[in-house]
Structure formats: structure tokens, C-alpha cells
């Protein structure tokens, strides 16, 4: 469904953030991207929807090659890739509803969006999504009145109303407390399952990643060091990804906490 071929990103400063990354993600697979800060996780997902221009290599979304697209065609393809951000990236001074509907910007013309005259179908879908994430009564609130977890839910709605085939998720839980982090991760994974979406989730919290995803990719210095199921993450593997550290506690804690949160 998504295929990266020899994807390279070299920044102007000469830093090579990605070194010929090859990756193939089948339909409906939820994948966690782990790795130390600066490993190129954010760059990788931003190269897919070209918020960062890759230096070379190809990105195939379905049959379409993205790196060579004109800006108009790129905009159409971006509609198929919903993105969720670390700091939520909601437009703070707009209402929750406007933020959710902004996910439809790629589908409606400028004046309709400017005058907030979205098609009724989109408005219905926005209400449905807000209801699904439990924020229906917040629709009229301004985004900056919400708590972190609520904002991230709005961010999820904004990504889903695009009707995407793929979710690009950049550190969804980094600004959230542990409980909310789990709720948000669970919500993202449930929604992916419901809608058959593939997702790439950048995440720092290895335990959290193991809890929810089907496949883990370990990135180090812009190259893939590990690719496998979550339970194959052994202390040795974590050492190759992150470097020397006592990993037992990190992995062990998974089971205990998971039971407690699963309710």
C-alpha cells in the first residue's frame, strides 16, 4: 500500500537524516517507528507527504509515485494521508468544529472553506467523528480551551475526516500523561482497525508501542536497524537501536501496566 524505495534525505547542513530507506507497508498495517531523537523518524514521515522534500528515492502510495508529483497532484494525494502531530497542531483560535472540518480543505474550494460553507455530508461526518472520540459537546469550544488529550482527539478527527488510506502519526503521546497516552494510542489503533487504515506511528515510548502495534521498525542514524513483531524487541535489539542501557525494566513493565489499563 505504501512503499518507500531508497528514500534519502540530506539537509542543507549536510546532515544525512535518511540513508536509502526501503520500507513496504501492506494495507491496514499499524506500524511503530522507534529510535533515538535525531534518528530521522520525523523526517521519514514528513518525506512521505512531502512536508519535507526527499533528496532522492521514491514513495509509492498505492500505484502513485509521490516524489515527482506537481503541487496540484501532490495536494490531491495528501488528502489520502492523514497526519497527527505531537503538539496537536490545531489552529488554536478556531473552534473544534472548524478544526475538524479543516481536514476537508483538500476537497472543498477556497470560498466555500473561507465562508465555512462545508457540504452537509462533511458536517455530518464531523459530528459522527466527534461523537466517536467523545467530544460531541465540545464542537463549539475554541481549540485552546481543551485539554491535551481532548486536543489530540480533535487532531485525530481532523486526520480521519480526510478519509485517508494512511495515517502518519508523529509522536502522538509525547505531550500527554501516561494514562491519556494509552487512551490516545488505543483510540488511534482502534480507528485504524475499524477503517482498515495503515498507519506509521513515531513513538518514543517503546513499551507503549509494543502494547498496540503489529510491527515495529527501529531507526538509527537514518537507517533501519530492526524490522519485526513487537515481541521480538529484546534488550539486544534495543541496544542496537538506542545504544547500551539496561532494557529489562522497559520491556518487563509492558505486561503489568497493560493489564491494569486494559480494565
Amino acid at each position: 500500500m505504501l512503499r518507500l524505495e531508497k528514500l534519502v534525505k540530506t539537509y542543507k547542513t549536510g546532515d544525512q537524516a535518511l540513508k536509502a530507506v526501503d520500507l513496504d507497508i501492506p494495507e491496514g498495517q499499524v506500524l511503530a517507528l522507534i529510535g533515538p531523537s535525531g534518528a530521522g523518524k520525523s523526517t521519514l514521515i514528513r518525506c512521505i507527504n512531502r512536508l519535507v522534500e526527499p533528496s532522492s528515492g521514491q514513495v509509492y502510495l498505492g500505484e502513485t509515485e509521490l516524489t515527482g508529483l506537481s503541487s496540484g497532484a501532490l495536494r490531491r494525494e495528501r488528502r489520502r494521508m492523514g497526519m497527527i502531530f505531537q503538539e496537536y497542531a490545531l489552529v488554536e483560535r478556531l473552534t473544534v468544529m472548524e478544526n475538524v472540518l479543516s481536514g476537508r480543505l483538500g476537497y472543498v474550494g477556497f470560498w466555500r472553506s473561507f465562508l465555512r460553507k462545508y457540504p452537509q455530508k462533511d458536517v455530518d461526518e464531523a459530528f459522527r467523528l466527534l461523537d466517536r472520540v467523545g467530544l460531541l459537546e465540545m464542537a463549539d469550544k475554541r481549540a485552546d480551551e481543551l485539554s491535551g488529550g481532548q486536543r489530540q482527539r480533535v487532531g485525530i478527527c481532523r486526520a480521519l475526516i480526510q478519509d485517508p488510506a494512511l495515517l502518519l502519526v508523529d509522536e502522538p503521546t509525547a505531550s500527554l500523561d501516561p494514562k491519556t497516552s494509552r487512551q490516545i494510542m488505543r483510540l488511534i489503533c482502534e480507528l485504524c482497525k475499524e477503517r482498515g487504515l495503515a498507519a506509521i506511528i513515531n513513538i518514543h515510548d517503546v513499551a507503549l508501542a509494543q502494547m498496540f502495534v503489529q510491527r515495529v521498525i527501529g531507526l538509527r542514524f537514518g537507517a533501519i536497524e530492526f524490522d519485526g513483531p513487537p515481541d521480538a524487541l529484546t534488550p539486544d535489539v534495543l541496544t542496537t537501536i538506542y545504544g547500551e542501557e539496561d532494557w529489562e525494566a522497559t520491556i518487563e513493565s509492558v505486561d503489568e501496566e497493560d493489564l491494569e489499563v486494559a480494565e
Partner: protein
Amino acid sequence: MPVHDWKGQKVWQLRTQRESLAHWVMWLVGVAIFAYCWQQISQATTWAFVWDAPRIAGDIWTRATPPRWEYITQLGEPIWDTLNIATMGTIISLILAVPVAFLAARNTTPSALFIRPIALLIIVSTRSINSLIWALLLIAIIGPGVFAGVIAIAIRSIGFCAKLLYEAIEEIDETQVEAITATGASRWQVMAYGIVPQILPAFAGIAVFRWDINIRESTVLGLVGAGGIGLQLSASLNILAWPQVALILLVILAAVVISEWVSAKVRGAII
């Protein structure tokens, strides 16, 4: 920070001896320049007038009081003109300043190499010339009257508004812009959803601030014939009608105080 040993103790001083000396010389030179300038100014001043000043000021004060209150009937229209010059001028300047600001801001300019310098030039050139001088020029071009005043205020304000606005644009949170871009929005949609909501408070603040300044500026435009209450002021000054001058100054004061109050209220409501 020199430290040196003196009888086994570490002695600390802020400056070395050399630095202290340099400081002392600097002060000496500074005082000498001040004394010299003082002397020059003193020579160029006709001190008789200066000693006379309190008496003259007192004289004008007695002539100007009480203000000629019945003259107020003739000031209604000029002060209305003045307010209109300020308001219209501010509106026109804002309309022109918004595109200039977008062209000048580093993160929104279409070309940092060609268009941005032009936008910056517009900002600098409109800002550097006083509105009184703009009015003089415009009166020569489009004739005396309120319209010249409106245009003078408008041109003078472009640079001010555009500069503050483009600084606000450069300080926006880029992740919100990124998020809107990622939805597949067009360039104009990104502007309307990602940028405009973020700069709206700054825009409103700039608008009332400049309106407030423009009311003060437009009161003097009449001195050169560009309409408004300044016209009455210069006429009254010319015929030495001090009670009228006093009343005009009071009216201007009242207008400025009211505009200050309004803009403070509006700014308070936005922020």
C-alpha cells in the same frame, strides 16, 4: 576581571588599572564635549528672549483664557473631518499593508530574493517620510482638502502597519501551518486557515493602535491645508485669536483622550 596576589591574598577588582584609566579618559572627553557644545549653543542663543520667555508665556496665557466657548459651533465639522481623515486613512493603509506584510514576511514571501526587498523598500520609504510632508506633496498633486489628508495618512501608515504585521507573521506557530498543508489544502486555504487566525489578534491591535496615532497626526494636517481641525488652528494662529486657539487645543485634547480610551478598550477586548 583582574585578580592578583597581594601579600598572599587574592585581590579582586572589576577593572585592571589600564581599563580604569581608559574609563577616566572617556569621561573626561565626554564632559569636555558637553561643555564645548553648551558654550556653542549659548553663543547662538539670544538670551534676552529666553529671560523674557516666562513673561511672554504669561502674556499669551492671559490672552488665551478664557477660551472662546461660543467658537465651538464652528469646530464640530472640522473635528469630524479630522476623525474621518484618521479613520479612512487607517482603513486604506490597512488594506494596502496586508499584502505588503505577506510579501515581506520571510515565511510567506513568494521570493525572498526579489519581492521581499521591494516590500521592505515600500515599508521603509512610506515610514520614513512624515505625514505632514506627504500632505504637502499631495496637496501639490491633488489639491488641498480632506482627500489629500486621507491619502497622506494612508501612505504614512502603510509602513508602520506592514512592519508590525510582517513581524507577527514571522512569529506564527509553523506546526499549525504544517498541519493545514498536510490536509491537502491549497496555498490560499493554508493562508486563511493556518496563518490568518494566528495573526488576527495582532492585526486588530495594530489597527486600533495606528488609528489612535493617526487621530493625533491628522489634527496637524490642516496646518498645511489638508483639511481637518488644523485648518482652524492655523487660521486662528494667523490672526492671533488666542481664545480660539485655546479652545481648539482643548477640543484636540478631548479627541485624543477619547481615542486613547477607545483603543485601550478595544485592545483589552481582543487580548
